[in-house]
Every structure is written in C-alpha cells, then in structure tokens.
C-alpha cells in the first residue's frame, strides 16, 4: 500500500483555491485528456482532487499524481467552464513545481526540456546560435538522419520548419514610427521562438501596428517571457525572466506606453500573470499586456483597403481564449478584411495538442488531441487556417501537412498585413 511520505506542500493561497472546487464536474467534458482517456484522474476535477488529497496527506504525492500533472496540456479550457472560478492554471504550475522539487519529473524528456529552458531559452544569443546550428544541420539534412537514428527526435524534426536565414532572425528595430495620424505608442514582446522561427510574423506585427497609428518600440533588453518555465514547474526561472522583462518594459527612454503587445498567446498569457508571480512589482506589466488582435480591436482597426478572396477558419489558441478570454476580437479583425469569408469549424476552442513543449514530450497524446481538430478542418476545407500562437502554428502546420490539407496555416496579423499591403 501507499508508503507514508510527507504531505505535499502547497502554497496556502493555492491550496485555498482548490477548496473553491465543489466537485460539480462541469469541467470534465471540456478537458481534452479526459475526453480521450475517460479517466477522471486525467480531468481537471480529478487533478484538483489529487492535489487536495496529497496536500491533506490522504494519498501519496508520488509518480501517479506527477504523471497526471504531466499529462495535462495546460490548455485551461476548464477555467472558462468553472463556475467556482478555480484558478486551475496556477494550481497546475504549483503542482508541477512541487513534483520537480520532489524529483518526480523523470526521464530524458523533462531533463532535456529543463536543460533547454534553463540554459538556452533565457540567453538570446545562445538561443540564436542554437537555431543557427539547427539551420546548418537542416541544410546538411542531418536532422532527418538524426530522426532516423534516434526515434525520440522524430516528432521534433517533423514539427520544426526550416530555420530562416540569420538575416531574417535579426532583432526588430528599436523604434518603428507610426504611419498616418499618430494614436500612441506600444511596445512589442518579440518572444524567443517567435523571433527565431517566425521573424516574418514579428515584422508583419510591427507593420500592422504602425499602420494603425502606433509607434512600435522594441526594448532591446527584453527576453523570454518565462511561460514555458512556469508550465514545467520551474517558477524560479519564470520569476527571474519576468523580472528582466519588467525592467525592460518600464525603461522610460521611449516615454509612456499605451500597451505591451504580444503576438504569441502563450507569451501574452504569461505577461498577464506576472502580477501573480511577482506581486506588486509585476502589476504594471500585467495591466499593460495585450494580445495584438485584442489591442487592434480595442482601439479600433483602421480598415485595410486590400481584398483577400478566400475562406478562413480561425482556431482559438487556448492561451488566448481560455487564459486571456480573447474570443471575438481576432474574428472581428478577420471579418474586416474584404472578400475574406470566416467559416466556423467544430471545436475551434479546443486544444490542438501543441501546448508548449507538450507535443514533443507526449507526442502520442498530442496527436490524439489534434485528430478531431483536423477532422473538423478537413470537413470545412478552408484556404487559410489562422491561429495566433507559435506552438499552435507549428502543430497545425505539421498536422495539416500530414493530413494533406491544402490550407495555409498563418497568424492573423499576416492576413491583415497582406490586406494593408494591397
């Protein structure tokens, strides 16, 4: 039977939060992993109950609890169903941090993840150099060879697009002036993966914001937002990174900011949580954080002149719809593009399985989660699939390619940018 171990130590505020759950179960059907496994332990209510039981010393805080925490995608679809307002995301991060402290995150996956997160992601220059190396390997086709020899690299290889040339991975200019009548000034969070793999989307974001009358500043001291660290339970690193960004975005050399804009749902959600990670110090940054679509919608999009004939499906990134509550804004922006037809597809608000590093660490479950979404998209057969998060872009691109869908998978600002340009 259960060996007696010390009860799980949870932050008292977070433990108190679990008590808001009255076990009503409304979250169950919203949970992708419960829908697939049918196991209540793989549901939000089950995981909350496991943590509560472990904190009360009624069950062992061991590998089973840790595995269920790892299996969670962190999509937070349960939070937008929870009438009691349980902050599941915070609880998950806390539980994973406790699992990490107790040495329950085992295996090569979490270890490699920990290394990449702590030693590469936090240093922009090392990260840049790593992507340069990756590009070099891709050019020599060594990535394919690696995936053949080492099966665990296969998923990463199939997810990763060709790394763009170094010239396309340069930092954005520190200041891009507004076009037309000036409406204000915003800062842009470049993001780490966004900057290396999706520089083109970053540049499109700057153009679209400038087009809408905003000076766009890109503080050069900024870095990774810490979202992936927090999700994996490494709260110390997450706080350090948040601290660096608080300093970077509060430097007043550009004058006051109207917003700190992000074009990555995961990063935006993390910025919004900095006030929880660093109470007081993080309040300003959290209050200024906006997703690019949300911001453009909030201030009023300048209607683009160009037309874009075609059909588009908008797929909600979990960290935009569930973590930040942004649902209508991106759809309204797309509707503002002439000749572009927004067509609904089933389960737009459910997770695609990307979930940060999840699709690399749990490829089988990630594929199961993605499958019904691909079915829904296949049934509608759009010209574009639009989503505003780097992980989702990679996951949907790789899924669409494997499924043989004709649709291009793009970020909403890319379509806006095209519409502005003509």
């Amino acid at each position, binding site marked *: 039977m*259960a060996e007696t171990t010390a009860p799980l130590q949870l932050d008292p505020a977070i433990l108190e939060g679990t008590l808001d759950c009255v076990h009503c179960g*409304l979250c169950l*059907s*919203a949970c992708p992993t419960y829908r697939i496994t049918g196991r209540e*332990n793989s549901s939000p209510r089950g995981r909350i109950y496991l943590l509560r039981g472990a904190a009360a010393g009624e069950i*062992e805080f061991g590998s089973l609890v840790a595995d269920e925490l790892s299996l969670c995608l962190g999509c937070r679809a349960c939070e937008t169903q929870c009438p009691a307002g349980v902050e599941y995301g915070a609880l998950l991060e806390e539980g994973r941090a406790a699992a990490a402290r107790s040495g329950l995150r085992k295996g090569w996956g979490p270890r490699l993840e920990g290394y990449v997160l702590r030693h590469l992601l936090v240093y922009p220059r090392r990260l840049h150099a790593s992507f340069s190396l990756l590009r070099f390997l891709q050019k020599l086709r060594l990535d394919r060879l690696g995936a053949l020899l080492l099966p665990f690299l296969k998923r990463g290889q199939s997810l990763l697009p060709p790394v763009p040339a170094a010239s396309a991975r340069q930092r954005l200019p520190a200041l891009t002036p507004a076009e037309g009548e000036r409406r204000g000034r915003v800062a842009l969070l470049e993001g780490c993966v966004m900057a290396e793999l999706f520089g083109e989307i970053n540049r499109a974001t700057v153009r679209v914001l400038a087009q809408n009358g905003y000076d766009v500043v890109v503080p050069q001291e900024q870095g990774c937002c810490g979202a992936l660290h927090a999700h994996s339970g490494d709260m110390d690193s997450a706080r350090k990174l948040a601290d660096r960004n608080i300093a970077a975005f509060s430097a007043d050399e550009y004058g006051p900011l109207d917003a700190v804009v992000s074009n990555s749902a995961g990063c935006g959600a993390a910025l919004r949580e900095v006030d929880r990670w660093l109470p007081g110090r993080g309040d300003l940054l959290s209050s200024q954080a906006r997703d690019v679509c949300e911001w453009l919608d909030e201030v009023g999009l300048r209607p683009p002149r160009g037309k874009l004939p075609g059909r588009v499906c908008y797929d909600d990134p979990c960290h935009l719809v569930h973590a930040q509550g942004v649902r209508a804004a991106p759809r309204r922006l797309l509707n503002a593009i002439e000749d572009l037809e927004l067509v609904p597809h089933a389960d737009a608000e459910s997770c695609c399985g990307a979930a940060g590093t999840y699709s690399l660490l749990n490829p089988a479950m990630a594929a199961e989660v993605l499958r019904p979404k691909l079915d829904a998209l296949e049934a509608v057969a759009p010209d574009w699939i639009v989503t505003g998060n780097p992980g989702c872009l990679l996951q949907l691109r790789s899924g669409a390619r494997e499924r043989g869908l004709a649709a291009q998978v793009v970020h909403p600002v890319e379509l806006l940018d095209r519409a502005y340009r003509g």
Partner: protein
Amino acid sequence: MSESQPLSASTTPSLLDRLAAIVGEDNCLSRPEELYTYGCDGLTLGSHAPSAVVLPADRDQVVAVVAACRKFERSFVPRGAGTGLSGGAVPMDGAVVIGLSRMVKIVEIDAENRIAVVQPGVVNAHLSEAIAHMGLFYAPDPSSQQACTIGGNVAENSGGPHTLKYGTTTNHVLSVEMVLPDASVVRLGSAAGFAPGYDLVGAVVGSEGTLGIVTEVTVRLVEIPEAVETMLAIFDDVSDACRLVGGIIRSGMVPAALEVVDRRTIRAVEASVYAAGLPTDAGAVLIIELDGAACEMQGLTDRIRELAAREGVRELRVARDAEERALFWRARKGAFGAMGRLAPDLYVHDAVVPRASLPEVLEEICAIGDRYHLTLSNVFHAGDGNLHPNISFDRRNSEELARVVAAGREMLELCVRVGGVLTGEHGVGMEKRDYMGLLFTPEDLEAMRKLRDAFNPDGICNPGKVIPMTRACTEANPRARGYDEVPL
C-alpha cells in the same frame, strides 16, 4: 477513505488480473491514488473509495466485467461523469466502479422517427449539439448537462429547468439495452414507444443503478420550437417571485421553464464566468421561458406582464436574442458550482412541495438555515415546486457538518409534512436512503425491495442505495446505515 480494503495483489490477484485482461491495463485502475478520485461524485459529504475502477469500451466488456465481479463475489457500481448529487455513483462496501466514460458513441440518429440511439457515456449536451442542425433537441436538460451523461440521466431520472413542460428523462426514454447483475443482456421497451406487458423501462429509469447497467439508450427527440421568449422577472422579495409562479400556473399557461434564483445565488453567479448581468441588488429573479408557435408569443408575453405587475415586479427584462437567452441559462446552470465561491463545500438539497405552499415553505426553510447558523441560498425549479436549498459549508469543520446534516433533515421533514416528497430529480442514492421511512411505510419499502430483487437478487449491483437496510441489519452494522451515522 473507505472502511473496506482496496483490492490488492495479495487479496484478489485473479479478479484484478481478470479485469485488466478484459478492459486492458490502461483502463483498469487499482492504485490508491487512482481510486481516491472515485470515492465521491457531486455529493462530497462522504468518500468511499472503490476497490478498482474499470473503463469498458463496449457492452461485451461490461458483460465480462459483471461476470468476473460475480464470480469473485465483488459488488459493482456504474458511473457516468460523477456529477450526481445524491451519491448514487459512490461505491459502498469496496465495490468495483464500472465507468462508462469511454462508451460515448451516438450510434444512430433517426430524424424521420425522431429517435436517437446512444451509448450511456454520451454527454447530454453533446446529443443536442449533434442534432441541432436537423431542428431537433433532446429535452431533459439537467443543469450539469454540459458534463453529465445520458446513462447517468437514465439512472437518476434526471430533470432540469425544462421539466415543467417537457417532463423528465422517463418521458423521453423509449428503450434500453441493459446488462443485468447476472451478466445476461436484455432489451427493454421498444423504439416504437409502445411495449406490451409491464413497463420495465419505467422501472429502470430512476432506479439509480441498482437494477443493472444500461449499455444503450434509445431516446425520443423533440422538435426545436418555432419561437422562444425568455424573460427575467426581477423582484425585491423572493416570496413575490413564488407567488407569480403560482399565478402563471393557475392561469393555465404551461411555460417551458419557471426558475427562481435568489439574491445570494445571483451574487455568486455574477462573480463567475457565467455572469449574465443579473441585478445583484434584487431579492430574486424569476426566469420565465415560453416556447411554441411564433403567433402566440405576443399574447402570452402580455399576460405574463400583467400577472407580474400584479405581484409587484420591479422590472421585466426580455432576452434580446438567442445569445442573451443562452447567457441567462448559462448563469442559471452554473449556479451550483458558483457556490464554491461562498465556502469549500456545498450540499444541494432536493425536495418537492406543492406549488401553492412554495412561499411559506421557502420562508420556513430559510428560518431553519438561520436557526442552524448556516449559509443558505436557493435556486430552484419553481414551476415544479422542486426546491434546491443549497447549504455552503466546510467539511473540515465537523461541528458545522453536523449542523448541515441536522438542518437538512429538518428541511426534508418540513417538505414531507406539507405533502411533498424527498427528491425531485437528484435521486435517493446514499444521501436520502435513511429518510425513505419519512415518506414510505415498511410495506411500501418492501414492495420496492421485491422489485429490486427481481433484477438484482443478491444486491451485488450498487449496494447500499435507495432502500434502507432492515432494522436487524442496521443494528448489526450501524456503519452500513449511511451518512448520518458514518463520520462524513
């Protein structure tokens, strides 16, 4: 945790092995941490861990699991999504939980004949979503419909706000396929809706999983009405809202729903993701929904206005469109969970009283709550006289827990005294088993026991539910009496 020992390798290795062989290792749970979550359902008054949980994929696996449990003399209990509020899915005596969460196929939709055949794990709301494009819906709509399963609804004879006009689950189930506790498979009723002989489907619907395990359900589908009008009648006093309910029913109208939400509930919901702009300073809101032919809506709405004015309504707000209507209903249906904001635990009571006595009974119930110093809120199906007093509490405080149980008992006694019954839609389960004597004579209960024994003669299927133990049995084993004796 349960007083019974979990199945472990040393006690019954072969039963666990057998179960795992039937459903697969991944779908057979036996570690204490895995079983912990299955110790309760939506009722958290007490927890009784199962000895194992199996998640069969189809009927044949259910048959094999039942046969294995029988062979090893281990009781079993079916479970849907575990959203029930009377502990119906709680495994007593170390029973094996047979979870139906993987049997989620909609087998057939026959729009022509307006029926659907579903597996028991299909989520209630998913069925309506799947048939909406055909202009049809599945009428029983319990507040947990976004998560609860059709199989669970059959077990509990679930109702919901629209019960007033459309009836409960029993009015919508035509036929069931069922694995009996002896592992045989029977089909009861017929898709045609007329089955000669005894109404066994009627016996099975609402039997709370004590007669067998339903593995397929044929349900009636209903046409989506041409027009729907949803109104919020806002009152300063909850009694006036109850009086309007009486007035509407007396007038001969049959609204689709009449739901009262009191002030404390409004405040909890408005603080949640289900906020719908309900006025937080109101004493109560009565949600009135009318549906039917478009041409009759104006006349009905006018009559409601007139009746509402007579009861001193502060404001009558009409939902502008389908979106706002959905918002109102989400608020109503999220109310239970929203109570989590008031205290860590919630005990949802369920009793039915004659509609005419609603104002007085409600007042008396609030007085009971006050007398026991409890936080009480009311949100209920007023049109049916189906009350849901919600008591918020903290189960870690045993003294408070004792008051919760005592107050609950007084409330039930009150409801029975005025001619009501113990439960409208949540079932008896383990929660109200020992209150059955308030309503039924020993002879009545004996008749029920005989019915159960015809299906489930040795009580191996969902033991300890619905029917109280005999006196002798209770004296011999006081812990088996249920929650008012067992420390919760």
